[in-house]
């Protein structure tokens, strides 16, 4: 076979731009676009408005009159020098209610990329670059001629991250978002508010009160409220689908004092979504009510999710799309319910998205088009536009009963704008006239919001009004509906946290923290965070007496941390003991993770009252906060024969090792726990050896010396022994390791010794490598040896010098080149030295634009089916770093809809020149520590003086910030260059073809809402694994905490797991070949679910360690928590591939998702 070698120069300069190069500029006729829409059954789509009435819509919102306000920008992404900022706010009106806009007004122009618009208060709130402004017109219906700056200091580091997603909350506060690159510093009369990453702001224009409502996300262009005021968020650059945003919560990529822990979205592995709306009202069928609508703008789809309660939070399930299309310029980006009960969709209309990867001035950027589409249900009546602006206050209060969320929200806005002088007397009258105990609770909640919005200060408010408001509030916080109660507690908390606290706190203790519904407890716990008192912490911890779930656990953790300044001093002085309840004390101390609490933690462990399930957590906490004595205590516990599972033992010992490395915990007088751990198997003993090295424990030195030097030591033990000895770092260690590098030693010993020596004495190690490598054979594991030099500052250069004039086996030199490229760092000298020493010939130049064009042309003729097999090849490592549908490595972006958003030339380039364009959030950092070690990885978080990076091996590493001497952006992508070098021309074309098909609507690799198992783990037939089988039995693989080594494997895009790719083994010579597989289900609410098998032939299935009879539809009754399904396959008989789909069982409360990831 003729190999087409795509070798490249390593130093590249971005000389040409190719991303989305082949983007086609389509015929802009809206009807042609509309014809591509595949619409959900029973619905139709009509054009509401299009260019030239509007161009480039970014956000839209209706006003109470039913007019649609649209923010548009032709300047995006960047103003040109000399160009006048002239972006517009336009108003679209459908005066004859035929479903088409017939009147357009330019309300404002002269704006610079307005990314948010919300009408209100006699004009509109508009995002104007660094400012939030209010625009209004002196003449009704006229053009805006007054501009008030309300807030300034929003960051503009990226024009698709600047403030956006404006909407009125049900509480009449203005909510808006900013995205990850934005750093904002906003002055308010109540203090300076700073937010240095993504998040949602909450703004009360009446008093210039601004707060962060929730933090995080990469680019969150979707936020909607359900009828009970709960917030849902989508992310236009994250992949977790629908998020339930709780007050003050931290989500993916948060900045702020509690960023150590974040909440996650409900649909990991989703494509990116933009915009969010909730269906409500009589025009839509009953089974659509409360469903969420969002846009997969890259995949040209308008998506629908069904929401269900799941403990204190929710579960969201994708349904059939509202619209899907293959039109390259259909970019649905905003979605809103309208006054007629129809659904409106803003279509940005652009073949090119984004400006990070595509040139600002790319001529194919569309600057003139834009559409608003309208989705209606066939044969169902529209909603009659409600009378609001001319209505009386009692009429408006009556409109708050409307089944349309749209009408209720707009009625509240009109009431708010009437002013409290007019509204409060009427509210008082209304409240006193109703039978409050029997009144409809949903209606009452709306009225409560009106009260709350009117009472932003006390001026001019009468006692009688306060009393009437109090009656509504009281009714709300004791409502029968838990959803009403939950949000009323939020409102009540905001008021009472500022006033006298003891009364309200008693009610929290008595009722809400022990409430019967988990969402009531969730809101109670979160609202306590603002109460600034020790008693508030005491009240919050009461929720532990009731069933907990993940969101509640997070909420409590956050609240306890927020309240730490108030409860910690009282706890330490003994004034507060949380009722002596060890579980509560353990939770509080873990949440605070404060060094000052070592003593109480030890006392708690020694007190013997700690519930069993808390013991491990308390020992783990000790590894985070304890000194030498406490670490020894942990080691002693981990070394016990009983009461510690193997998995817990590994976790504890490795946590101690981490503590010594990251917190520099000095050695104890006597490291008593170590000897028994050194006698253990596997990971525990390895970690114990390194601990001996880190603490320089003289007592174990002889053992390490022996293990390093003895010829019969197993390789993996020798490597760790050498690593531990190197940690002693003294002359004696250096002498011993140097001796082991010499030519009289076995090659494996020399290789490992040189690797260890690189950390101790780089020049000598390089000399020794220069002696060793010319005789080394390619089948030896040389990658680590090269890495030992490449991962140290200056190491590559030193090794290059040592190789001068040497001759290497060509394959050995290639291994070195591969390591050098994978290191992600400049290593020109070493690459030159290796090329010369291996006589490899000069590397090829980067592809020219013409060559890329030719490769793209070839790829278009490629075969996607074969391409998927190339993608799945182990040596290409694609799945080790990239996920599909959330299953796979997390180092690089998810590939689910890559073909729908990226053009073929971009894909070709990304394969050949990974560094040229790197996706948002996947830029690696380069960090050098005081010991000259170089680390590369994507920043996961930085908090408490520790930096956490995700490396190219998908491992999280923690580096103490104090140890860092240099830090900056890595010059290269974490994706190694030259990965595809060994592919044939045909393989390469097929691979690209496959990638271009991923996520394309109508194609074989289109997004699919079926919940199939994609991430599996399989037992490889290694000797340790086979020995374990022989010692026990095959079904031992289903036991919890079993000691087998499992490797990841993934389904094809179709969900099928090809059996032929899976390892099989025979335990004894005459037994039939088997494969052992498993996957996990995450159960958040217990109940029945269904597994649908393509065939159950020759399968043995376990859930946990309980055998289950497999049927084509197998019903499982699952408890909460992560449940493992283990499958034994008789490979002698079964040849059919395996596909398993998760499905609901009618009327079952279960909330289950398939565990993804690597």
């Amino acid at each position, binding site marked *: 076979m003729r190999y087409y070698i795509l070798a490249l120069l390593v130093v590249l300069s*971005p000389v040409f731009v190719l991303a989305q190069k082949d983007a086609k500029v389509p015929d802009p006729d809206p009807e042609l676009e509309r014809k591509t829409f595949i619409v959900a059954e029973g619905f139709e789509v009509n054009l509401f408005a299009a260019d030239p009435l509007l161009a480039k819509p970014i956000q839209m919102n209706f006003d109470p009159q039913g007019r649609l306000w649209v923010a548009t920008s032709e300047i995006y*992404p960047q103003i040109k*020098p000399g160009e006048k900022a002239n972006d517009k706010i336009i108003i679209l009106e459908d005066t004859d209610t035929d479903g088409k806009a017939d009147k357009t007004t330019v309300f404002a122009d002269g704006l610079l990329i307005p990314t948010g618009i919300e009408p209100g208060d006699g004009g509109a709130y508009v995002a104007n670059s660094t400012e939030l402004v209010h625009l209004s017109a002196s003449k009704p219906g006229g053009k805006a001629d007054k501009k008030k700056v309300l807030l300034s*200091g929003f960051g503009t580091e990226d024009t698709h991250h600047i403030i956006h997603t404006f909407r009125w909350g049900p509480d009449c506060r203005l909510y808006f978002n900013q995205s990850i690159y934005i*750093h904002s510093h906003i*002055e308010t*009369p109540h203090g300076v508010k700073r937010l*240095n990453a993504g998040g949602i702001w909450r703004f009360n224009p009446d008093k*210039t009160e601004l707060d962060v409502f929730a933090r995080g996300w990469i680019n969150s262009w979707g936020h909607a409220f359900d009828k009970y005021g709960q917030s849902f968020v989508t992310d236009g650059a994250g992949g977790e689908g629908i998020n339930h945003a709780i007050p003050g919560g931290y989500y993916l990529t948060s900045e702020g004092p509690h960023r150590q822990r974040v909440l996650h979205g409900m649909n990991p592995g989703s494509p990116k979504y933009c915009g969010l709306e909730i269906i409500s009202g009589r025009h839509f069928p009953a089974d659509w009510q409360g469903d969420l609508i969002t846009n997969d703008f890259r995949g040209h789809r308008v998506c629908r999710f069904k929401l269900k309660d799941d403990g204190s939070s929710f579960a969201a399930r994708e349904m059939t799309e509202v619209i899907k299309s293959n039109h390259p310029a259909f970019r649905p980006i905003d979605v809103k319910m309208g006054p007629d009960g129809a659904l409106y969709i803003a279509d940005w209309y652009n073949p090119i998205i984004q400006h990070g990867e595509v040139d600002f001035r790319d001529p194919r950027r569309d600057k003139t088009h834009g559409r608003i589409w309208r989705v209606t249900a066939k044969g169902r009546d529209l909603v009659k536009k409600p009378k609001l602006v001319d209505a009386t206050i009692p009429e408006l209060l009556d409109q708050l009963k409307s089944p349309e969320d749209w009408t209720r929200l707009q009625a509240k806005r009109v009431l708010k704008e009437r002013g409290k002088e007019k509204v409060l007397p009427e509210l008082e009258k209304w409240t006193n006239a109703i039978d409050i105990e029997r009144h409809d609770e949903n209606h009452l909640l709306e009225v409560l919001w009106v009260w709350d919005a009117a009472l932003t200060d006390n001026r001019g408010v009468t006692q009688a009004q306060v009393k009437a408001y109090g009656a509504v509030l009281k009714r709300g916080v004791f409502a029968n509906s838990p959803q009403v109660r939950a949000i009323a507690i939020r409102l009540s908390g905001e008021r009472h946290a500022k006033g006298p606290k003891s009364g309200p706190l008693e009610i929290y203790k008595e009722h809400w923290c022990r409430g019967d519904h988990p969402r009531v407890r969730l809101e109670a716990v979160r609202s306590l965070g603002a109460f600034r008192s020790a008693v508030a912490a005491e009240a919050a911890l009461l929720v532990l007496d009731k069933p907990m779930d993940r969101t509640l656990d997070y909420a409590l953790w956050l609240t306890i941390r927020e309240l730490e300044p108030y409860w910690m001093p009282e706890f330490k002085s003994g004034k507060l003991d949380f009722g002596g309840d060890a579980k509560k004390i353990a939770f509080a101390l873990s949440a605070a993770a404060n060094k000052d609490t070592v003593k109480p933690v030890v006392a708690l462990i020694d007190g013997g009252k700690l519930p069993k399930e808390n013991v491990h957590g308390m020992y783990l906490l000790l590894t985070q906060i304890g000194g030498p004595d406490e670490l020894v205590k942990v080691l002693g516990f981990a070394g016990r024969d009983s009461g510690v599972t193997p998995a817990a033992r590994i976790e504890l010992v490795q946590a101690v090792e981490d503590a010594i490395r990251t917190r520099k915990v000095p050695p104890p007088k006597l490291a008593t726990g170590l000897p028994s751990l050194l006698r253990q198997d596997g990971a525990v003993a390895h970690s114990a050896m390194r601990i001996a090295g880190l603490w320089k424990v003289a007592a174990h030195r002889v053992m390490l010396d022996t293990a390093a030097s003895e010829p019969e030591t197993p390789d993996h033990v020798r490597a760790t022994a050498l690593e531990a000895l190197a940690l002693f770092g003294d002359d004696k260690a250096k002498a011993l390791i140097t001796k082991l590098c010499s030519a009289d030693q076995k090659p494996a010993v020399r290789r490992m010794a040189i690797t260890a020596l690189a950390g101790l004495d780089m020049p000598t190690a390089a000399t020794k490598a220069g002696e060793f490598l010319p005789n080394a054979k390619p089948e030896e594991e040389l990658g680590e040896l090269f890495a030992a030099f490449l991962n140290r500052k200056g190491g590559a250069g030193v090794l290059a010098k040592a190789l001068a004039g040497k001759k290497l086996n060509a394959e050995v030199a290639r291994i070195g080149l591969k390591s050098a490229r994978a290191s992600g760092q400049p290593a020109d000298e070493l690459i030159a030295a290796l090329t010369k020493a291996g006589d490899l010939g000069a590397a090829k130049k980067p592809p020219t634009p013409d060559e890329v064009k030719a490769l793209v042309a070839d790829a278009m003729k490629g075969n996607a089916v074969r391409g998927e097999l190339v993608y799945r090849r182990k040596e290409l490592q694609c799945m080790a770093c990239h996920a599909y549908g959330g299953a796979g490595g997390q180092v690089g972006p998810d590939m689910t809809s890559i073909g729908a958003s990226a053009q073929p030339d971009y894909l070709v380039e990304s394969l050949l020149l990974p560094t040229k364009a790197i996706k948002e959030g996947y830029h690696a950092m380069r960090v050098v520590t005081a010991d000259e070690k170089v680390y590369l990885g994507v920043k996961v978080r930085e908090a408490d003086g520790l930096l956490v990076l995700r490396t190219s091996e998908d491992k999280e590493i923690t580096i103490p910030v104090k140890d860092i001497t240099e830090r900056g952006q890595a010059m290269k992508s974490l994706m190694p260059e030259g990965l595809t070098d060994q592919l044939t021309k045909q393989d390469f074309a097929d691979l690209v073809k496959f990638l271009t098909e991923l996520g394309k609507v109508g194609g074989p690799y289109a997004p699919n809402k079926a919940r199939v198992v994609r991430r599996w783990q399989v037992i490889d037939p290694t000797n340790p694994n086979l020995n374990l089988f022989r010692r026990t039995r095959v079904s031992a693989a289903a036991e919890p905490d079993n000691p087998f080594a499992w490797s990841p494997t993934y389904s094809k895009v179709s969900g099928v797991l090809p059996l032929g790719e899976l390892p099989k083994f025979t335990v004894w010579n005459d037994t039939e070949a088997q494969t052992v597989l498993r996957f996990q289900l995450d159960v958040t609410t217990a109940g029945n679910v269904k597994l649908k098998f393509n065939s159950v032939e020759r399968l043995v299935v376990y859930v946990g360690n309980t055998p289950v009879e497999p049927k084509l539809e197998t019903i499982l009754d699952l408890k909460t928590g992560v449940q493992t399904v283990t499958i034994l396959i008789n490979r002698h008989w079964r040849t059919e591939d395996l596909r398993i789909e998760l499905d609901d069982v009618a009327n079952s409360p279960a909330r289950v998702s398939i565990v993804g990831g690597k």
Partner: protein
Amino acid sequence: MFLSAALAVLLSTQPNDPPKPFEFKAGDRIVWLGSTLVEREQRYGYWETALLAANADKNITVRNLGWSGDTVHGEARGRFDFNNPDMCFKQLVNLTLELKPTVIFISYGTNEAFEGKEGLPKFEKGLEKLLDALKPAKARIVLLSPMRFYRTKSYPDPIPMNEKLKLYRDSIKAIAEKRDVHFADLYHVWPSFHIVSENGMHLTEDGYKHTAVPFTGILGQKYTRFPETKLESLRQAVIAKNELFFHRWRPQNETYLFGFRKHEQGKNAKEVAEFDPLVAKAEDEIAKLRKELK
């Protein structure tokens, strides 16, 4: 109670001394540092226009580097380095020095004042450090005090905050005296009979208008009446210049142009320098209108 509070306000509004005149020279380049008060002035231009008009015979140029939420430590300027105080401070100092000022207006203290008396030592240390770091410019320094907060419908009680602001005002004055640099007392700008603020903290557009003359007053500038239309033309030219300069020094998409993703779109950074000739042209227009005042 109310009376004594009102009296306190009244007393605190009495300036201690009449302001010393600050003398501008032909060719002066003023760089103006500060937070929202300074940042918003560039979009309205009343204060800058009044200053130019008071020195209509001199060629003076102003570069407004105000940044909302900023402090003497450059806290608002760190962008991706927001966690690194050295980088924040460097941003503030380096850009000022690059602009080669002959006069530097330093207008800080408002945001720091939220910290009250406890925050004062940190503020003073920061201000001294800033003054030291700006020495290489060899510019004449004007230290401006924070403005007071005003009683408004949405901010009914400014007294507690004004007590804090007064502490910072006094501290700035003391540092100015110690270093023998000019002090301008914005705290005592008192725009009688006009509503100058809505949120209590920041001036509205009208607020800048009605404080323009008092502003030049605290710098000891002589007031000359010019025709309103001519002043307005000058102000429009000032605003146009400020907008162009804003795009120059604080462009959008920093991340791609100069930041860690410049390897992708950094080629477009050359466009930003193209604002320089446009700013220069706008200055010519200002100079022309300034000369026409007389």
